[in-house]
């Protein structure tokens, strides 16, 4: 794929902006609220945490502790293997459908959680998220723009 010149300029009006200039890692980390419900629709748990907006990640990944806060046990969830964290090794994870508050709208997205407690970086991946949200990155100003 190449970035081809448009015949006419394309304008996107974003509704939300996050400033990550204070983030010491320099990564675009935004605070997102997550929640899970049971089969009746009753809240099991909610948690807010910083997640790195990662266009290279196939799916959103959160820590084992977040799963616990959401009332989920990764061992009881459908098994998935995550690759790319440690070369040549696959990290066993459980996958769940979780609610995420993106640009002040609650959407349901797939999320994977390590089965065993491990130090991982929270990432907001493409699956589900990029179906709902348009992102823009203002590199120099260290800002993330979003719109649902």
């Amino acid at each position: 794929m190449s970035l081809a010149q448009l015949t006419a300029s394309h304008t996107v009006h974003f509704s939300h902006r996050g400033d990550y200039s204070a983030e010491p890692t320099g990564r675009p980390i935004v605070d997102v609220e997550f929640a899970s419900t049971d089969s009746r629709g009753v809240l099991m748990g909610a948690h807010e945490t910083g997640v790195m907006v990662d266009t290279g990640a196939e799916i959103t990944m959160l820590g084992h502790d977040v799963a616990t806060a959401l009332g989920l046990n990764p061992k009881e969830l459908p098994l998935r293997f995550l690759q790319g964290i440690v070369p040549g090794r696959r990290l066993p994870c459980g996958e769940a459908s979780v609610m995420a508050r993106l640009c002040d709208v609650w959407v349901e997205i797939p999320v994977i959680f390590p089965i065993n407690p491990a130090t991982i970086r929270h990432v907001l991946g493409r699956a589900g998220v990029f179906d709902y949200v348009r992102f823009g990155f203002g590199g120099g100003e260290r800002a993330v723009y979003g719109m649902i």
Partner: protein
Amino acid sequence: MSSYYAGAIDFRTAGGTAATSSLERSPDRDSPTSMWLASPKARPYEGQWVMLNDQFEPIDADLSPLALGRRHEPVSSNLSIVFVRPTSVQIGA
């Protein structure tokens, strides 16, 4: 916007025993909660989290379940918090 953890409210005491949540879960459409969620009474709260008492009367509502929990901490076991799904979602402008 540094990383932090703000969730410190135990919701698991509210609303009785929670069922397993997973991609394979199927909605329990016959439960009283599901029936309230499908009723016209829930429509004014679309897109929000609603705290219900054991008579299924709304006590409070908020876009944030964490904020809702903080306002009513500790969450009593005869209260439940539910999300009212919008009947339609607009994508894009």
